[in-house]
């Protein structure tokens, strides 16, 4: 009996003192995500691509601006990828090192993708959640504004912007940012409408929590799952848009470059037997898109396991 009592005492003190750590819905989702092999492979690819963008310059023998005069004019024969002369990915038509050009292109393309998706997440989520939660006239007005903006052919606007205000990376960000949040705000609004009538929102309203705090504290955290999934699928979309613009010759300007610009150059010269100029940028482009799609799929499965 004495031992029993001691045991009970210990148990009692343990129950009183230690605070049990809760298992949040996010922790559950993380566990499911980590178990998903395809998503993990996608994540590893993305990390490798990101590392390549960040630290690729350190491996490069040539800078992205230098012309290698020894291969100039005979790129098709001398400019092929080789470890000896330091052009790991070969050279482009002008004799610039394709490895460091690809590093630079990766940096720009990833930045465009992430900034575009970032704008979409922040603006789209707040806009959609506000419209959905406030409802009524405000909702009508805000969503019709989105409809009108969506009905304008965005590629046309983007091209006009770039032509009128000059081709600059800032203008490209602005243009992509302007269009990217529209779809997101619609998705978020729909989700908000279904959340809005849940009892915990009503409980918060009954106790007098302000509208803004309800949106930030109760609506947005419950939306983040959908938003995260959509954002990961939006990044490749942004990259594709930028690449398309650059492919048309309207995107980033020399000496800057991006995957789209590199692929465009490579496609232009592939008849002369310099296939590596197309293959390397295309390879990075494709694996990154695959990586994002796999991660997006994995996130969706992890965040709403019921929807599978």
């Amino acid at each position, binding site marked *: 009996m004495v031992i029993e009592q001691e045991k009970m005492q210990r148990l009692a003190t343990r129950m009183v003192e230690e605070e*049990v*750590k*809760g298992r949040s819905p996010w922790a559950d989702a993380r566990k499911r995500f980590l178990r998903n092999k395809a998503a993990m492979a996608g994540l590893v690819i993305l990390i490798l691509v990101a590392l390549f963008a960040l630290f690729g310059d350190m491996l490069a023998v040539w800078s992205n601006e230098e012309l290698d005069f020894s291969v100039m004019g005979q790129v098709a024969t001398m400019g092929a990828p080789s470890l000896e002369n330091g052009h790991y990915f070969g050279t482009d038509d002008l004799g610039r090192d394709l490895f460091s050009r690809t590093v630079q292109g990766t940096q720009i393309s990833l930045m465009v993708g992430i900034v575009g998706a970032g704008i979409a997440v922040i603006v789209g989520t707040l806009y959609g959640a506000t419209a959905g939660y406030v409802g009524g006239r405000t909702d009508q007005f805000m969503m019709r504004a989105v409809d009108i903006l969506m009905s304008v052919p965005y590629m046309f606007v983007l091209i006009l912007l770039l032509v009128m205000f000059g081709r600059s990376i800032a203008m490209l960000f602005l243009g992509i940012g302007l269009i990217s949040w529209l779809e997101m705000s619609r998705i978020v609004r729909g989700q908000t409408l279904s959340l809005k009538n849940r*009892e915990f929102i009503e409980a918060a309203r*009954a106790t*007098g929590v302000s509208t803004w705090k309800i949106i930030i504290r109760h609506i947005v955290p419950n939306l983040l799952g959908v938003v995260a999934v959509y954002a990961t699928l939006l990044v490749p979309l942004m990259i594709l848009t930028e690449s398309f613009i650059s492919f048309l010759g309207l995107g980033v300007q020399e000496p800057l470059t991006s995957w789209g610009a590199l692929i465009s150059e490579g496609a232009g010269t592939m008849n002369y037997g310099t296939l590596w100029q197309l293959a390397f940028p295309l390879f990075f482009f494709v694996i990154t898109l695959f990586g994002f799609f796999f991660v997006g799929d994995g996130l969706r499965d992890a965040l709403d396991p019921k929807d599978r």
Partner: protein
Amino acid sequence: MTRPLLDVRDLRVTFHIRREGDLPWTQPRELHAVGGVDFSLAPGETLGVVGESGCGKSTLARALIGLVPAEGQAEWIDGKDLIGLSPRQMMKYRNDIQMVFQDPLASLNPRMTVGQIIAEPLTTHHPGLKRAEVKERVKAMMEKVGLLPNQINRYPHEFSGGQCQRIGIARALIVEPKLIICDEPVSALDVSIQAQVINLLIRLQRELGLALIFIAHDLSVVKHISDRVMVLYLGRVMEIASSDDLYAAPQHPYTQALLSAVPVPDPAHDMAASVVPLAGDLPSPLAPPSGCVFRTRCPRATERCAAEVPVLSGAGHQTACHFPGPLTEAEIAFARRTEAA
């Protein structure tokens, strides 16, 4: 008589219904979810509200707390009318009136820890409180409602239904309100858990001197907890009386039919012999019957019932019926015949 905590006079909630495809200038149809409810509630008293689904019980609760717009009058103990207050003016009273919801899990934000959920009313109404102090009060409250305070960092999905309802009760109690409106707090729970939660509510009410408005469709639960009971039908009060009075001697035919349907825990009891059936369905609140709203299903209805709206009358035991009194054998037989037909 002491001043009532809450004095409700002619409370009405009207929803404007627009049908799909209505043109913008057509008049929306009016749905009277609550059509003129009167009652008063003394401090520390429990008022049970019963009625079948769709009779306006929950709407009444939401109107009192300002979640749906209402008309009429609801006078708080300090003489202020709660109906039609601006959100800023209402803020002061939200501290005094709290609500416990029907679905225990759905009324808790799944992304917040229990500590954050319980603390929310406190941090909303007393923004100056220090974190440590909030945490201490949350823990004390968790202990009071029978939760382990060391589970403060857990999430709602890690608790059972009964525990979730305790969390909901803790959230309502943390700001030390004077009135708690319980909207079917136990109908989503198992019977054994129901008893626990109800006894918890009764104990807390005694300790803290709370007034309760207890909405339920389970008549035996209401009998157990309430001092007085109000019977609603189609948004109107049919009968209000002290709990003992109402269950012992119901005066309104509807109350009698309702009470006759309560299961009796006795296998020898013949339900079919005691129950008074009601013919037909609840009429649509979009087009309520003229006069007494219950007349379409009442075995005692006469022409006067169709012409004249009965007013709630009587001292103590109030009934809204032109012909109150126990149903006779003939009337019960008549009700059975029309039900069978």
